[in-house]
């Protein structure tokens, strides 16, 4: 059950993110990138196998790795979250600069003539 929920969450986030990334407005692209990064973070997390109630650290005398959750993907997710957060902020600044410079929020800096 957990697996299905997680897989659906990743799928829905990715699908909406990709759709938004392909939209012509810069703000939609930012939101799309954020959604995809959430999906990727969940995906990395799931690569450590899904376990509930398992500790992340071993203690002395109980070194059976089967009892514990894999801490590496959790560390990876933490790094990935920080990096994508910072780069989304940077992207927002460029978005504002583009809006100020070109007077349009289209990704090409101008409206496509219909």
């Amino acid at each position, binding site marked *: 059950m957990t697996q299905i929920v997680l897989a659906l969450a990743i799928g829905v986030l990715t699908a909406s993110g990709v759709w938004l990334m392909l939209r012509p407005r810069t703000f939609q692209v930012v939101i799309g990138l954020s959604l995809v990064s959430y999906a990727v973070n969940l995906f990395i997390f799931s690569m450590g196998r899904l376990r509930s109630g398992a500790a992340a650290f071993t203690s002395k005398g109980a070194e059976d790795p089967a009892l514990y959750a894999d801490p590496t993907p959790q560390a990876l997710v933490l*790094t990935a979250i920080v990096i994508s957060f910072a780069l989304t902020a940077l992207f927002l600044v460029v978005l504002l600069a583009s809006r100020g410079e070109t007077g349009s929020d289209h990704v090409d800096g101008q409206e496509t003539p219909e």
Partner: protein
Amino acid sequence: MTDWQEHLIIGPIVLPMVIAAAMLLFDERRRLLKGGLSLFAMAAILVMALALLHESATGAAGGGDTARVYQLGDWPAPFGIVLVADRLSTLMVALTSVLGACSMIFALARWDRAGPRFHALFLLLVMGVNGAFLTGDLFNLFVFFEIMLAASYGLALHGSGEARIRAGLAYIAVNLTASMLFLIGVSLIYGVTGTLNMADLAVRIPQIAAADRGLFHVGAAVLGVAFLTKCAMWPLGFWLTTTYSAASAPAAAVFAILSKVGAYVIIRLSFLLFAPDSGDSAGFGQLWILLGGLATIGFGTAGLIAARDLSIAAAYAVIVSSGTVLAAVGTGNADVLGGAVFYLVGSTLACGALFMLAEVLNRGQDLGARSGRAVFDDEYFDPFDDEERNEPGLVIPAAVAALGGAFLISTLMIAGLPPLAGFIGKLAMMEALSGLGGWAGYGVIAALSLASLGALIGLTRLGMAALWARDDDAEPAIVVGAAEGVAIAGLLAACLFLAVFGEAGFTYADHTADWLVRPDAYIRAVLGGGA
């Protein structure tokens, strides 16, 4: 070996980071101090890189070919983080430091005034690139990649203006997407193999269960797409020309190494993870890289011929150079790879020089369009509105003649014509390819020859327009600052150096290729180091 020599390998990463952090303490107006600090940093990195290069050229202390492995925190290899300095990575670090030092000197003439925090961003970029070359595991590769990209976003926008912001927006979006693919690929590989250390991965790949191998290949392919986007393989490289041609000249020159980071990772992973003895995964993706490389050469050459502007032509030259290296990797042959490694060094230096020349030759023609309006008034001061500071210092006499000579050298390098080093690299590749035969061998030879012809036609035409067809009355004479002259001369001197000491350089490249096709030595050096 004394203690400080042990730590030499981490120097090209730590030094720029520390100095970049220290620069944030100083006000933007203290240009002299910042310029001096960055020059010091680049000189020190150059010395360290050359020391590392010398060591890998002469072999390890005990003799024989090996890699220098640095275990951070002294954790043994598959568990801790390692830095690995082997022949390929030290060569790339040395290339970065030469190109970086020259770009930095070029920027000191006036571009470092075009926007805030140029020096800190530049040093962080160098740190990220060096880290990506030296790291021994995939996740740190991601981290260094992101440092490099984050700094490059800042540098791409350096100088502001509408063209840069428009190009930067696309550049950031494409690279953020590629980073997501990178993460998906890395985590899939981790999920299947349970390790991120490259040497450990190479050991575990033959043991992957048949049921999981498909998943591993998916991960490797997704990871590959991320790097191929970075090295602008057709059809993933449309972002490159707009970004590089819009970026300020010193930034564009140093960006020439960024696409080589992608090519470096492709070389490293193809030969380490998918070596002939890696079981069912042997040669995975090779055909795609070969076809992609050929398509990239074709696309880049067509673009070069069609380019109307020298900086756009330089951007296409970067694409052609990436395509050539990819096609050579796709053949999977050690001799071809040796030629490609030699070619990569020369063509990267020449592309960097061409970006600088393009800016100098275009000067005075469309400055108004290029500098643009300030977006953030408090951060921005126009470099070209202050006559006194705009004085570029010593001015090189007979600028046009010197520039003509420089242009000739970089054209010969990019087109791969004798007597310069570009020819040696191409000739070595062609000789090995004709030995290889088959459609792949002759196809790549045809592509390389057409690329030479296309580069020659395109660059000669642009050079005539820029140098001979100048209307001296209508345009202001070209003024080359002393720093700019030194930077261009430095890059071209490195190109000439490659030609004069061609044999030593080519032997090094050839040994590098031999080292790369025998990954067991790399694996032993990394994993055996902790035992």
